[in-house]
Structure formats: structure tokens, C-alpha cells
């Protein structure tokens, strides 16, 4: 279970740059939470802070995973605990093959847990299977990681990693943005097939349409670094209809 308590975060080395202004959230095992909110409200910042990105300073509050604080952990340590972030803007890494990268990632996770590394043969099989499942052009994964990938291809590649690494807590930051209808369905099917009592999801999205496929247990509205409303799936429909105006005026935020 993930618990976020009164989380305040700002940009390291920039004074008065608080972006997250006190977030509280509880994600139980097996649940899917959706986070919606206007541009610039802090959704990606929250995702990055959860994953341990260095350039944010947590000035107040705590994040616990199964009761243990993870605030002091590095991103790799959080990954080893089963956390995963599908990036809104995945980085391009020249010369690194997706295959090689994922094998290394899987190996370091296994190593940190004292488990055996997957054999190259088994990994190759798994990899090819997942490449087909997420509908990535097999030629693409022979190229450099994300380099020159289209927006949609990058998102599919994030899904590929999600499916191979099988995390217990997956944060998807706008993985549905910029996707065509088929790709959107693949993302939804991926998430739905991975849904299990032991795994939770935090899905950041701007669009109700994704939530037609993935029915969330809980929907949060994030405005100006705070969760201003929490509800069931119907909340997403409301937002789709009415926008964020009522919350914006309430927080005095100006977008």
C-alpha cells in the first residue's frame, strides 16, 4: 500500500518554488487511481517525486510503501521495491538497445532481491512476446532507446517496459496522450490484464476516454499542487463536462 502524507515539494535550488502544496493520498493494493488536473497543476511532479527524482526537494510530509518511508531512497531502490513510472516524456538514449536496457533493468532488480537472473533465452522469448503484445514495430526495438521514436511509439515502448518489468505499483503519466485509438486500446488492455489484487496503478490522464476502458476505483482532482476533490469514476465524467473552473476559483490558482 502506498501512502502519501501532507507532501510538499519544491524545485531544488529554486526558492519559493513549491509545486506540491500538501498532498494526501492512499492507494491500496489492487486499486486503480486516476489523477486528473489542469496543465501545470503538478501531476508529473508528483509522479517524479514518487519515483525519487533528485531535482525536487521534499520539504514536508512523507511517502510510505507498505508502511516504510521511501523518502530517502534513490530511484533505483524504489524500482527494486516494485515501483514503476511510465514517463510523460521518455528520455532518448543514443546507442542503447531497448533489449539490452530492459535485460539490465531486470537483472539489477533480480540481483537486489537475491533472485536468479533470467537467462538470455527466456528473456528473449518474453521480450518478443511483449513486443508483439504492445504492438511495437519489431524494427523499432533494434534502434536506440526512444531515439527518433514518434510520440506514440515512445508510449508503446513505456508499455513494453511496464509489461516486462511487472511492477507492483505502476504510475502512468499521460501514457494515453498522443495515442491513436488502437494504441489507446492496447494501453487499456495492458493495464486491465495486469490488474491484480497485488498490484496498484496510478494513472495520470487528461481524458475520460481512457477511463472508459480502465474503470478506476478512485479519481482525484489535482489543482495547484493539492488534491481538491476525490471521488469515484463519476468524477471524471463531471470534469469532462464542466472543466476545472470551479476548483480553480476555489484555490485561487491562475492557469
Amino acid at each position, binding site marked *: 500500500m502506498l501512502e502519501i502524507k501532507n507532501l510538499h515539494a519544491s524545485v531544488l535550488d529554486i526558492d519559493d518554488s513549491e509545486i506540491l502544496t500538501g498532498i494526501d493520498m492512499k492507494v491500496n493494493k489492487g486499486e486503480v487511481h486516476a489523477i486528473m488536473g489542469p496543465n501545470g497543476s503538478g501531476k508529473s511532479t508528483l509522479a517524479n517525486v514518487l*519515483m525519487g527524482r533528485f531535482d525536487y526537494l521534499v520539504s514536508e510530509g512523507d511517502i510510505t510503501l507498505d508502511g516504510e518511508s521511501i523518502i530517502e531512497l534513490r*530511484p*533505483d531502490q524504489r*524500482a527494486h521495491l516494485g515501483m514503476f513510472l511510465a514517463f510523460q516524456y521518455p528520455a532518448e538514449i543514443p*546507442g*542503447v538497445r531497448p533489449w539490452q536496457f530492459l535485460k539490465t*533493468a*531486470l537483472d539489477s532488480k533480480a540481483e537486489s532481491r537475491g533472485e536468479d537472473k533470467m537467462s538470455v533465452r527466456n528473456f528473449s522469448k518474453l521480450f518478443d512476446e511483449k513486443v508483439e503484445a504492445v504492438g511495437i514495430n519489431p524494427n523499432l526495438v533494434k534502434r536506440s*532507446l526512444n531515439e527518433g521514436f514518434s510520440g506514440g511509439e515512445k508510449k508503446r515502448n513505456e508499455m513494453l517496459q511496464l509489461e516486462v*518489468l511487472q511492477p507492483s505499483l505502476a504510475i502512468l503519466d499521460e501514457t494515453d496522450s498522443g495515442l491513436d485509438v488502437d494504441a489507446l486500446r492496447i494501453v487499456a488492455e495492458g493495464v486491465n490484464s495486469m490488474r491484480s489484487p497485488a498490484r496498484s496503478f496510478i494513472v495520470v490522464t487528461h481524458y475520460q476516454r481512457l477511463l472508459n476502458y480502465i474503470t478506476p476505483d478512485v479519481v482525484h482532482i489535482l489543482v495547484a499542487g493539492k488534491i481538491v476533490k476525490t471521488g469515484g469514476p463519476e468524477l471524471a465524467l463531471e470534469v469532462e463536462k464542466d472543466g476545472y473552473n470551479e476548483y480553480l476559483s476555489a484555490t485561487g490558482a491562475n492557469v
Partner: protein
Amino acid sequence: MTNQNTISRESDLSGGEYKWGFVTDVETDLAPKGLSEDIVRLISAKKEEPGWLLDWRLKAYRHWVSLYESEGEPDWAMIDYPDVDFQDIYYYAAPKGTNEAPKNLDDVDPEMLETFEKLGIPLQERAALAGVAVDAVFDSISVATTMEKQLGELGIIFCSFSEAVKNHPDLVKKYLGSVVPYTDNFYAALNAAVFSDGSFAYIPPGVRCPIELMTYFRINTEGSGQFERTLIVADAGAYVSYLEGCTAPFRKTSQLHAATVELVAHDDSEIKYSTIQNWFPGTPEGEGGVYNFVTKRGRADKNAKISWTQVETGSAITWKYPSVILRGDNSVGEFFSVALANNHQQADTGTKMIHIGKNTKSTIVSKGISAGKGNNTYRGQVQIMPGAENAVNHTQCDSLLVGDQCGAHTVPYIEVRNPTARLEHEASTSKVSDDQLFYLMARGLSEEEAHHMIITGWSRDVIKELPFEFALEASQLLKVSLEGAVG
């Protein structure tokens, strides 16, 4: 080298210290320190060389003395080090009792074999299994040569330089100094005067050498210089791939290394020359380390091709510009380089492509990585001579900075004397970005693994040019060499 062998070495490299920093306790036969005509004569006598070679050495020595007295060491490179005291160096150090190079492995000092074992050199029958013929130079004397027989059946000669002088004097006499004359530069003159040993290879016309030839060089004796000389000749239509590895033990005093390599590629032949240079880089505080001053040059005749591929991770100072003289029409020259400078290392390296023949083509891919307080300079020269109709050069020159105390410099010289030439030059400087690091770490890679992956990926265009087992080793070396620079 078997893959197995290379892979097991990979797992050994986790310690982070300079792994090759052990000293072998072999009794060494030293000539007195210092350089003089007598020392040159002594080296030549110890090696029972013919008169013409002694004469050549002496001419080189006198030339060196005149350079030393007039200009001293060359100072145009972007490297900074205390003057070398040339009288405080041993110019001849041979393991005792090996005045005669051993005939087979049983004659080799077991301790020396163990050293090679630690280096991961497949000296024994592993070599045959792996398809690598190894010529290992231990300080000055060549210790053992494997697979000579199999090669002999094809008419291929692969032996130590001294053996070549004894057994193939005509070939040596014909080609020695033909590409790098002793008058070429200060260090080339020094090397010609006092070179101790090195490798020699000759591939007869039309023969494709079926295995990769490899030499491992190592400096062992404290305060000794190493001056090896390599000569590779591919006769018309021949092909050879040659690998060179270099290590030196941990020493707080600096060691001088001044090597010369000459390649002769006759019509329609091809020579592929790969180097992994891992001489001791000095301590992280900048003490000791090898001063590596190397002259490497090849001559490509009609339709011939010469490729230099180098991964330079070692040495405190690197001064090295493997070059190709594109003399014949349609000849091709290539230079692929990754040079890493960490801590206090300084590398000034690059290439020269001299286009003389028509339709000659050269490719330069240089990747410089600077970390810690390291300084990396690419210095390249492309020269198109008046007769070189339709010459083509493509140069790509990339720098990667790790941290903010290091430096990267690019110094291209271009001289075009024929208007039909086409030259392209691309250059870039990048840093390992926080986005890249966070992306990889969020997937579970440690900061060090992430850096390593970004850097080897960035170097991929060069590393992929190396034979497979060398590519693995190169990637591991980059990793080890960067330890301490990140994290």
C-alpha cells in the same frame, strides 16, 4: 580470446581499483639507466642485431640528440606534464635468463605465465581454441608466440620483432622506417634508437589471415621505458585483423612509453588494427601513470584499406595520432576512436588522413569522454593533395562531459588543395543529462550502471568496429575507468 575468458574477466572488474596493478617478481636484467650511444650499442648487441640495424639505430639516436638539443620535446599538444628526464630511465630491461627468447611455453618463467594469466591472456592452447594467435611482449623480450605453425603453412609470418630481424631480415630491412622514418618526430627518433621489441606480421599476396593476430604489451620494471615497434605488412590482396592490448602495473612514478607502429597495405589489401590501451592512468590524485607517446601510421596503396580502431582509457598522458597515407587510387582510410580522460588524465589524440591518390576516401569518428578533472583533445588533420581528384572525407567528432570540472577540445586542421574534394565535418558536445540518468535509474539501474550504459551507448559507433571479445572488454574498461567519476 575465448568469450568465456572475457566474460569471466568482466565479473572480476567490480573492485574499482586498477585491476592490472600487480607487479611481477621476476628477476630483471637491467642495463644502466640513461641514454647514450653505448646504450644503443648495448641493446643492439644484446639482441645480436646485424650491422645495418645498429647503423640505423645510431643515426636515429644522433637525430634524436639533435632534436633534444634544439627543440626538446614537442610542446604543441594540449597536455601538461613535467619534463621527462631521459637520463633517469632504463632503456633495456629483460627478464633474467631469457636472453634467448624461449622456444616453447615450458621454457617460460612460471611466474610470468601467471602474470599473463591474471591479465586474461589466452597464451596457452586456449588461444588455439579461440582462434587467436598471441604474441606477448613482457617488458622488452617477447615471451611466447602461439600458433606460429598454423600460420606458417599459409606463409603468414607473425613473430616478435627481434625474431623477424633474425629470420626475415630482408623483409624488415625493406619496410622498417618506410612509413615512419626515424626523422619523423622526437618520439619516433627515440623509439628507432632504443626500441626493444615488438611484433612483426607479414601476410603474403592473396592470403586472408584466418585468425585475429593479437599482442599484449605490458610494462613491469619500475623506472623502465617501453619502446616497442610494430610492423605489419599486407602484401597485394591480403587481409589481416590485428589486435593490441596494453597494461602496466600501479606505480607512483611515471613511466615512459614511446611506441611506433608502421602498417604497409599493398594494392587491394586490407589491414584492420584495433587497440585497447589501458596503461596505468596514475592515481586519482594524479601521481604516476604512463606517458604514452605513440606514432602510428599506415600507407595504403591502390584499392587498399586501413582501419584504425582504438579505445584509449589508460595513461596519464596520451599523445597519439594514428594516420593513413592514402597514396594509391581508391584507397580508404578509417579512424574510429573512443578516448576517455578521468581524474587527472590528459589525452590529446586524433588522426591524420593524407589524400594523395584519386577517389580516396577517409572516415573519422572520434568520441572523447571527459570526466573528473580529465582533459580530452581531438586533434585531426585532413589533407587533400593536388592530385587527389574526388577525395572524400567525413569527420564526426563528439565530446561527452561527465561532471563540470573536465574539459573537451576539438582542433581540426583541414587543408584542401584540390577543388573536387568533398569534406564533411560534424561536431557535437553533450553532457549526460539528468533526464537520461533518472530514466534509467527509475528502471532499477544504479547511478553507475546508468552512466555506463549512457556512455557505452554513446560510444557505440566506435565499439561496434571492434572484434566481439574486444568490444566486451572495451565496454568493461570504460566502466572501470569511470569509477569514482560518478556517484
